């Protein structure tokens, strides 16, 4: 039975090859063809130790780098799901804005999404590895110039999703609406434009955010969000300061 099947398989193969125009008389499939033996790589492949030895010095250097302390958090930077404003979100958005303003001082406010922040930071030393875990993605900072109307759309998105990490913009969430929107402390002017700091993932439509799809202009800074975070923490440390972000009521529920 088995033999028969192998034979019929080979015949079929030969027939198929004829169909595509190869010379049937000259071409034949070797008998060995039927030995479709299963290669059990899971039980037989062991890591080649020469490769592990080769990358081990890099791995050690990398782990040392990841363990390198760049600054300190004075408090736990948390992101509870049920509050419109979080310490981690404020830290993140403040850092984005501060770093982007070095490139463009006109940057007015910043916005990220809480889903993009992958871990919380504990009080104490902040390592490079912590910031890699917080932002493992290769997202890069983008500045979008938005109309007042687009900012309103974005604020509505922030309201309907229960608040998102922002800096230098404030609002009250009334049901699914954003009210009392202020940028840099000033009421939102629908007749002017504002420069928003965000990152490529969101600017390109990620997380279903609203208001970002029709910018007046767009500038990709070519700076990784993670690098910006590292810089921000490092500069605080160099100035002798811990990261001591506070909740300041930038997004509140209007009950």
């Amino acid at each position, binding site marked *: 039975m088995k033999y028969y099947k192998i034979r019929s398989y080979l015949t079929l193969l030969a027939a198929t090859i004829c169909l595509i125009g190869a*010379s049937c008389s000259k071409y034949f499939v070797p008998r060995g063809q039927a030995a479709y033996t299963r*290669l059990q790589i899971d039980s037989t492949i062991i*890591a080649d130790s020469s490769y592990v030895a080769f990358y081990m010095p890099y791995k050690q250097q990398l782990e040392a780098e990841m363990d390198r302390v760049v600054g300190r958090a004075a408090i736990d930077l948390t992101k509870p799901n049920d509050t419109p404003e979080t310490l981690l979100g404020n830290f993140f958005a403040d850092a984005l804005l501060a770093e982007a303003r070095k490139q463009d001082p006109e940057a007015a406010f910043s916005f990220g999404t809480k889903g993009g922040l992958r871990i919380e930071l504990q009080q104490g030393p902040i390592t490079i590895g912590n910031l890699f875990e917080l932002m493992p993605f290769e997202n890069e900072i983008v500045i979008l110039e938005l109309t007042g109307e687009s900012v309103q759309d974005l604020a509505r998105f922030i309201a309907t999703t229960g608040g998102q990490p922002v800096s230098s913009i404030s609002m009250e969430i009334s049901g699914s609406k954003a009210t009392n929107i202020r940028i840099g402390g000033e009421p939102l002017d629908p007749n002017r434009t504002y420069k928003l700091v965000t990152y490529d993932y969101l600017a390109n439509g990620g997380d279903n955010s609203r208001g970002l799809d029709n910018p007046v202009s767009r500038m990709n800074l070519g700076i990784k969000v993670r690098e910006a975070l590292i810089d921000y923490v490092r500069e605080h440390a160099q100035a002798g300061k811990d990261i001591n972000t506070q909740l300041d009521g930038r997004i509140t529920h209007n009950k």
Partner: protein
Amino acid sequence: MEESLIINRRNFLKQAGVFAAVSAMGGIPSMALANDEHVSLTILHTNDVHSRIEPFPMDGSHNQGLGGVARRATLVERIRSEQRNVLLLDAGDMVQGTPYFNLFGGKVELELMSKMGYDAGTFGNHEFDNGLEGLAAMLPYANFPFLTANYDFSDTIINGQTRDYIIFKKQGLRIGVFGLGIRLAGLVDPTRCRGVRYLDPIIVANEIAGRLKNDHKCSLVICLSHLGYQYRDNKVSDRVLAANTRFIDLIIGGHTHTFMPEPELIRNLNGRTTVINQVGFAGINLGRLDYEFERKSGKASLVTAGRYEISVRERSLIKHG
């Protein structure tokens, strides 16, 4: 065994083509018939390995324990010990994805690939992530050629450091390999690829594949492509490329991280078959395609296609053994 043959037959009938996919069973034919009538060729390939040097960490994520360059090396070496003619190819995005790239700029990835004996690779969009300067800095660590036929680097600092194609000779068999990359605009920051001219991949492919097949008498023409498997719109993809070109036998794809269950056969402009294969990402799989050539006719037959998952189970072996 019986069941696997039945499945093979069904695949055969369904595809009405010249290959049988046996990835589900992981079957390997012993094709190493080293006589004058036949030459066998084994193509091994990866794509979008993304700096995954160590296996994915055991953190409960979907891919935990998978991949890893040291286990891939063992597998490749074993296949090389079994097969006389082996080519090991990569379809781009070798870098970016773990801190190894952030810290060492691609050096570790390319050194390890060189050590493993990669025969050729092409550029993915992420190869440009540190700009042309970053690319120029990492290229010296590769001892294999980068094939980039549709990028014109004439006005850049990496001019002359890549090639359009290469021809491998194995027991008198000529295998032409060329590379195609994706349009960088919109994917790569313009400052990181300034001066790179993008050429239409289909025009370039037809020209080069034709030359490889007709002028250089290659029995097999392989395209290393970072165009992506397919798109919803009419953007050029491997499927579009296959259908609109004449002389490509095999497209080894990348970019879309597609875990193809088996190679796909597309009818090309010559009415012949162009095979597309892509093996996901991160070095979770190694693609293997075994070809058999009959010397007189020079006709190729793809006799099997396998996809080997480098799995977590070896990890326990390493630990305990």
